[in-house]
């Protein structure tokens, strides 16, 4: 029986696995060592990563991106005061991953002295490479080879008292080369590649306080966000992957192009929250206001030839845009007994986007001037949720909720400025009613069953693909014993959005089974299977040769199967073996070529309604304990990617590492 279950689990399973390195087993004793008044638990792993790639290197860099070199694969340090009365700190926790040129690097630190201060830091770096959007099976535009760095710092003073102070800083940068594109000089013109050096910086400073006042806790925070984008663009003459070369008889050619688009945004915000807790109920509220603003200059100059005429076009626009956002939330939770909770929350959101700018675009060749006015957008939403949660007995519990929201969208294409005539404002309001019910059944302590259903109807969705008349069903069965866990879930989401031109409908169904079995501490099996089915149909309208085509549908069909299985085995408390396999495969609609289509879509759509791909990654890892403070690790992971509709994107990669884990 056990073997049968094991085989089922290995044959089934669901999903993702972390990369083969770093090794999850640290060196040294978890209990650590006592030094003076502190206990120290530490470990770090350093080694060499390698990779070889065949096929599309760009696609590999986009989805995996591990390279060669020496790395500090992972480290962990925990220092704890044994009596809680350290001189400068009572606890330090530090962990890092991937330092030393991995594409995914991170570090987090906490330093704390009880009742006095707590400092949290996180730092992350991500090398982001994208070969461009896939279009019709080939490489596309907007290639990015950038590096994102993010950091957060939070300092809390007197964290256990009724009077706390908060200080914080967050920042992120994105920098690196990119390719983009520009079309000149009108809608019939050609598309030209642009080279950019991306440079974006975002920073946030925070200051806040929390205090208690007549039994009511008040928390407020003021933040200042600052964003700068200094990315410019110049004409790229060659080297753009996937760029279609212009034919010699091309009616439009671009000989010189330069654009700079610096913009600087600020987003100061206030946030205040109150909490009041009584025996039978508690109330909390939150109120925020942010005054987003972004000033910009677009300075673009293009020189070229169009229809045998020399064209020079300069575009200069400048101004600013503002987005004030005011929100309020009030939650009331009523708990007459520990078995019953009634929660009601009311939310009010008011978001406006406006500006004080008028733009002029001047074409020096045609002497034409185009005047642009900013668009006004206002979104006001009022929502109310009521939730009831009642545990009838240890065997059965019920939940029910009702949601109502009312949204008003106001827009104005041309707003009064400098004497210009305003266009008529347009307003669209809609209401959503939705309800959810569910039952929790625990017929036996290790076994739990959860069934829930949600239904909603929106009177006036904003887009044809938004939720309109939808319902969702969820079922979950879990068996959890000491050494064995099995979970099965089924979800379905159906949405119908009918309109006059045509109709949009989508169906998605997800089924998954996963389980783990740990008969002994030395042996673990973990496995799962997931199937995600998506089918959608939407009405489309487009032009071919100036003829409007209507009455056709865009059909999308995706059937994604994911399996995962992992086995860990420890030999003689010294050797740790781990092997795992992951495979994701979109079967599409069963076609292996675009020739045999589905539905009444034209050929251009037939080729893209489905996109069968397979992505697999087996791995194995070995970790050997050399002594109490040292382990040797080695691992191998294979990545294979294959897209059935194109051979341009497939790749095979062999990656691996060898490392030593130390504890000192």
């Amino acid at each position, binding site marked *: 029986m056990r073997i049968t279950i094991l085989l089922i689990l290995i044959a089934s399973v669901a999903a993702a*696995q972390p990369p083969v390195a770093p090794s999850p087993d640290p060196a040294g004793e978890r209990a650590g060592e006592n030094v003076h008044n502190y*206990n120290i638990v530490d470990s770090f792993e350093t080694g060499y990563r390698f990779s070889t790639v065949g096929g599309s290197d760009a696609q590999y860099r*986009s989805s995996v991106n591990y390279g060669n070199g020496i790395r500090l694969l992972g480290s962990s340090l*925990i220092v704890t*005061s044994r*009596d*809680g009365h350290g001189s400068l700190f*009572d606890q330090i926790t530090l962990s890092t991953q991937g330092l030393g040129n991995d594409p*995914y690097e*991170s570090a987090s630190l906490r330093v704390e002295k*009880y009742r006095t201060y707590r400092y949290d830091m996180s730092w992350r770096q991500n090398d982001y490479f*994208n070969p461009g959007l896939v*279009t019709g099976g080939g490489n*596309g535009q*907007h290639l990015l080879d950038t590096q994102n760095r993010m950091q957060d710092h939070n300092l809390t003073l007197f964290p256990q008292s009724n009077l706390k102070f908060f200080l914080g800083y967050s920042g992120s940068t994105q920098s690196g080369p990119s390719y983009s594109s520009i*079309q000149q000089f009108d809608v*019939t013109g050609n598309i030209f590649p642009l080279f950019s050096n991306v440079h974006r910086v975002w920073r*946030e400073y925070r200051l806040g306080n929390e205090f208690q006042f007549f039994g009511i806790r008040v*928390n407020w925070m003021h*933040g200042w966000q600052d964003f700068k*984008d200094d990315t410019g663009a110049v004409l790229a003459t060659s080297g753009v992957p996937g760029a*279609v070369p212009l034919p010699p008889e091309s009616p439009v050619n671009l000989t010189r192009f330069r*654009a700079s*688009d610096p913009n600087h945004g600020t987003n100061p*915000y206030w946030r205040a929250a109150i909490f009041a807790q009584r025996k039978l109920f508690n109330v909390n509220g939150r109120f*925020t206001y942010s005054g*987003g603003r972004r000033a910009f200059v677009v300075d673009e100059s293009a020189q070229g030839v169009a229809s045998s005429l020399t064209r020079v076009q300069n575009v200069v626009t400048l101004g600013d*845009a503002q987005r004030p*956002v005011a929100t309020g939330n009030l939650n009331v939770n009523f708990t*007459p*007994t520990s078995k019953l*909770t009634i929660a009601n929350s009311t*939310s009010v959101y008011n978001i406006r986007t406006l500006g004080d700018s008028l733009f002029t675009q001047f074409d020096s060749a045609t002497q034409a001037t185009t005047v642009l006015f900013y*668009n006004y*957008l206002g*979104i006001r939403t009022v929502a109310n949720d009521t939730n009831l949660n009642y545990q009838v007995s240890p065997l059965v519990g019920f939940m029910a909720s009702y949601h109502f929201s009312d949204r008003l*969208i106001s827009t104005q294409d041309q707003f009064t400025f400098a004497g210009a005539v305003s266009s008529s404002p347009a307003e669209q309001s809609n209401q*959503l009613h939705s309800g*959810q019910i569910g039952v929790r059944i625990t017929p036996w302590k290790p076994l739990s069953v959860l069934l*829930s259903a949600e239904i909603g109807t929106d009177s006036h969705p*904003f*887009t*044809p693909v938004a939720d309109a008349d939808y319902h969702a069903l969820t079922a979950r069965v879990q068996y959890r014993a000491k050494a064995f866990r099995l*979970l099965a879930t089924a979800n379905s989401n159906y949405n119908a959005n009918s309109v006059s*031109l045509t109709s*949009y409908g989508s169906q998605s169904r997800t089924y998954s*089974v996963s389980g783990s079995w740990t008969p002994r501490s030395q042996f673990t099996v973990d496995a799962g299977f997931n199937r*995600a089915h998506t089918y959608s149909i*939407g009405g*489309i*309208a487009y032009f071919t040769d*100036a003829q409007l085509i209507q009455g056709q549908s865009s059909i999308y069909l995706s059937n*994604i199967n994911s399996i*995962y299985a992992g086995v860990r085995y420890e030999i003689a408390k010294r050797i740790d073996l781990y092997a795992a396999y992951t495979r*994701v495969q979109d079967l599409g609609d069963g076609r292996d070529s675009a020739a045999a289509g589905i539905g009444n879509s034209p050929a*251009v*759509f037939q080729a893209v309604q489905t*996109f069968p*791909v397979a*992505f697999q990654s087996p791995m194995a890892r070995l970790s050997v304990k050399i002594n109490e403070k040292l382990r040797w690790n080695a691992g191998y992971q294979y990545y294979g990617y294959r897209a059935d509709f194109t051979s341009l994107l497939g790749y095979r990669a062999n990656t691996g590492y060898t490392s030593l884990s130390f504890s000192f």
Partner: protein
Amino acid sequence: MSLAVRTSMLLVIFCTGVFVANAQDKPANHFVENTVCRTCHPIIWSNFYKNPHFKSVASGKEPPESTGCQGCHGPGLLHAQNGGGAETIRAFTTLPAEQVLDACLRCHSQTLSRANIRSSQHTLNGMACTSCHSIHGSQSVRALLRKPQTTLCEGCHTDVRAQFAMPFKHRVEEGVISCTDCHNPHGTFAPTWRMASRPHQVDQAAPNEEPCLKCHADKRGPFIFEHLGVRVDGCETCHAPHGSTNSRLLRRPVVFTLCLECHNGAGNFGRQGTGIPSQTPKHNMADPRYQNCTACHVRIHGSNADSSFLR
């Protein structure tokens, strides 16, 4: 008497009945010195200095109901007198979820991140604090999680786990971001996008925006020309945030299908209810050049210079 008034009265009567039915006399119990616990639980006692809850013990100023073993497990006199037993003390392994929640929220309720825990999907689905947190058996010092965060979340959300295995995904498995960068497992305020209803438990960035903008700050704007679908219904209109088999986490493998499914001019939709603008006759979808929408409409997330997002 209106239906609403009658329903309210019935609800009050029902709640009162439930409350009275549950009010029972409990046998007398008292707090004891916390050192009493050490006699039978020496390992937990000797390692408790590594636990974040130890700070209340270290202060030495907290009343017994707010510190040490009995701060969570309740008065220990009967438990000590009876030589142990789960029925004589607040043993979390035997408590139903709602009582676990009550016990933890006695201290942990008044923070912004837990303001919505009573109405969170986790609570409504019968999850308790101890479903994810382990006070005495945690491998993670900071949040006392039972397992590393990603493993913990994916243990139940197996469909999401499958999405993170796809070729295009946010780097959660690689450790660059974590589930709580975007989600608040303790419940969230209603989202400021879509209809303030779905998605559930997606946290908001500080100024009430989609969490996507915490990292993708260049998409934040405000822009003079907003792509209204983005601002009104959110990034998920076009992107699948966890993972996708499509480049750039798009919901369709090819961009123009994504665009045309909204930009079809169908009535009722859009800002004036007259349809989201469709193509102009100058576009020719038979020409591959026009099939790459974002090759021309480069500022698709919003533009400061062009209402069609051309620059």
